[in-house]
């Protein structure tokens, strides 16, 4: 198991066997089906996969933000503290209870893909940042205002005092994402969950936001969970990476282990389908055939078997592969490596 393998490294967030199912009238959708993740202090964990693989639902489950008809039915989400007493299993906390609300936005913050829709259009940026500060500290209104301004300066926003009085629609995409990062970090969280934070941005603005996240991590020492389908962004920012397919983690390890020596056919296909420096002009990239299966018609056995180039008949469609250890920290779920 993962724990044995990483004994020397102590994780700050440990997700074990997380299952979130959606009970719709058409049947049950197993959006997250037994996910294990480890987030280490001051490190960045990247989660990659195609849309619909359960990346976002996993992090929403961690913060208990799943709405009806979804339900997290099984698993553990252990947020560790300095002592054993500080550690809590988030799934055991009362939904919307005080304890959980203190953790959301307090010890674990989140930034979203489209900051336009995640900011309130009828409150100023300042109002929204101050709300977060005052919910998680004892600061008064004017102190909170100063604190908010201070944070806008730290994330490199121009004219911070003016920005506080502006609404989300008055800012550009990059500025909105900066404001979002300031709002998420002003409570000094242990973990920042970034759900596709740069997908809606230009490459140049994306580079600015990624640099800002790295800088903030160095200064504040928080851990980041980075969700994205852009493998370039992951390579740039992450220390560890988990590759997800249809609600399951199929491969995980350090960024170098997974990107330099991908073992799972899905990871191999993903990595080869993006143009790189070695791609010749008008060269056809090898493509991953087919699409993600319909949620109600998931294949039996290994979920990747209908699209897999290394399909083993009589094995892959029968059982889900066990976790195999390639080397220390590098884990893969594939029958190819079954000894």
């Amino acid at each position, binding site marked *: 198991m993962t724990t044995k393998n990483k004994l020397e490294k102590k994780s700050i967030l440990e997700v074990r066997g997380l299952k979130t199912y959606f009970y719709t009238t058409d049947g049950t959708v197993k959006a997250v089906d037994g996910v294990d993740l480890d987030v280490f202090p001051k490190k960045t964990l990247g989660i990659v996969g195609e849309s619909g693989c359960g990346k976002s639902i996993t992090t929403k489950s961690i913060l208990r933000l799943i709405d009806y008809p979804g339900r997290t039915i099984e698993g553990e989400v252990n947020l560790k503290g300095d002592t054993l007493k500080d550690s809590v299993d988030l799934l055991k906390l009362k939904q919307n209870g005080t304890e959980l609300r203190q953790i959301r936005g307090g010890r674990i913050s989140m930034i979203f893909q489209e900051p336009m829709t995640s900011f309130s259009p009828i409150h100023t940026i300042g109002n929204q940042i101050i709300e977060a500060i005052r919910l998680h500290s004892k600061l008064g209104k004017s102190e909170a205002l100063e604190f908010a301004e201070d944070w806008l300066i730290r994330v490199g926003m121009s004219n911070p005092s003016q920005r506080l009085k502006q609404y989300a629609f008055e800012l550009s995409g990059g500025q909105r994402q900066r404001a979002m990062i300031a709002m998420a970090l002003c409570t000094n969280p242990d973990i920042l969950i970034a759900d596709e934070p740069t997908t809606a941005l230009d490459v140049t*603005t994306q580079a600015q936001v*990624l640099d800002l996240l790295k800088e903030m991590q160095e200064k504040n020492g928080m851990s980041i969970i980075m969700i994205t389908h852009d493998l370039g962004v992951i390579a740039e920012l992450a220390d560890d990476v988990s590759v997800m397919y249809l609600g399951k983690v199929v491969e995980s390890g350090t960024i170098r282990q997974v990107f*330099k020596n991908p073992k799972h056919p899905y990871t191999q296909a993903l990595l080869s389908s993006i143009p790189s420096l070695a791609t010749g*002009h008008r060269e*056809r990239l090898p493509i991953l055939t087919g699409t*993600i299966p319909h949620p109600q018609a998931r294949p039996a056995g290994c979920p990747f078997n209908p699209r897999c180039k290394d399909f083993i008949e009589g094995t892959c469609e029968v059982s889900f592969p066990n976790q195999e250890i390639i080397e220390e920290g590098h884990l893969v779920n594939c029958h190819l490596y079954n000894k």
Partner: protein
Amino acid sequence: MSATKTQNENIVEVKNLKKYFPLTQGIFQKVVGHIKAVDDVSFVIPRGKTVGLVGESGCGKTTISKCILRAIDPTSGEINLNTEQGSKNIADMREKELRPLRKEMQLIFQDPFSSLNPRMNLFDIVSEPLLLNGVKSRVERQDRVEELLSKVGLRPEYMVRFPHAFSGGQRQRIGIARALALNPSLIVCDEPVSGLDVSVQAQVINLLMDLQDELGLSYLFVSHDLSIVRQISDSIQVMYLGRLVENGTPEEIFSSPKHPYTEALISAVPQADPDMPKNHQTLIGEIPNPSNPPNGCYFHPRCAYATDECKKTNPALTVDKSGRSFSCHNAKDIKLTGLI
């Protein structure tokens, strides 16, 4: 691109194209200024080739493509479309004359979710251009739709289904089939893969290249993703705030950029290789307001190499010995790094 080319080697020749949007104020809508969305742009699209157009959002990429398709009317300049009937300037052509030429140019949209009518089935969507261009017989249209769908890798049985039943990649294929319906010679691809997953992006790019080889199509490929533009394009135009700042083959642009903006764009692209050195030359700030551009070179407030001259005069697009053009005062003095 060779220097000696006859008229007909290029499908489109754009000369000094300008598109200004007026800014108005007050109850009489007095014009108080202009947004120069496209400002004196000239380039050619060679027949059967792909021209990549890159730049940040708001730099005028989409305005250029709309002008070429005459979805909007250019302020001034020439757009020469070379068809079998000879060369015609469509920049200020009347709609009546333009109508028969429209089928030569088609568009593939960015967002496959909003560019397909949810109330029309696949047959209606793909055959609509045929119907509008006088193919009345249903059997004939049905045959053509079947042919088109199999060309883009969709099963002809899907004809009766509606767009909601398809994934993003499949919808983009439907959009491509619709664009191909009238046998166009030019297809403008406006960010055709930016809304898609990486694995699906490769499928669509491969399809576009296969169709080009098979049908001899010319593409204007508008995108902000440099790695894809590099893979598909025969030549690349880099745009900043309504102006072209550099052009060249992908090889030239990526190995030896001549404009600091190109260098910054290239270094901003994240590479999926953990061993790559991560030295962003992060651009300071954002693209300036096009209604009030800075004096001199538009790029100088964000440029690491700016000198006093850059603040005063705007550099002209100059051509060097090897045939590449770029607009930078300091091109000779600075050494820019690309990839590799």
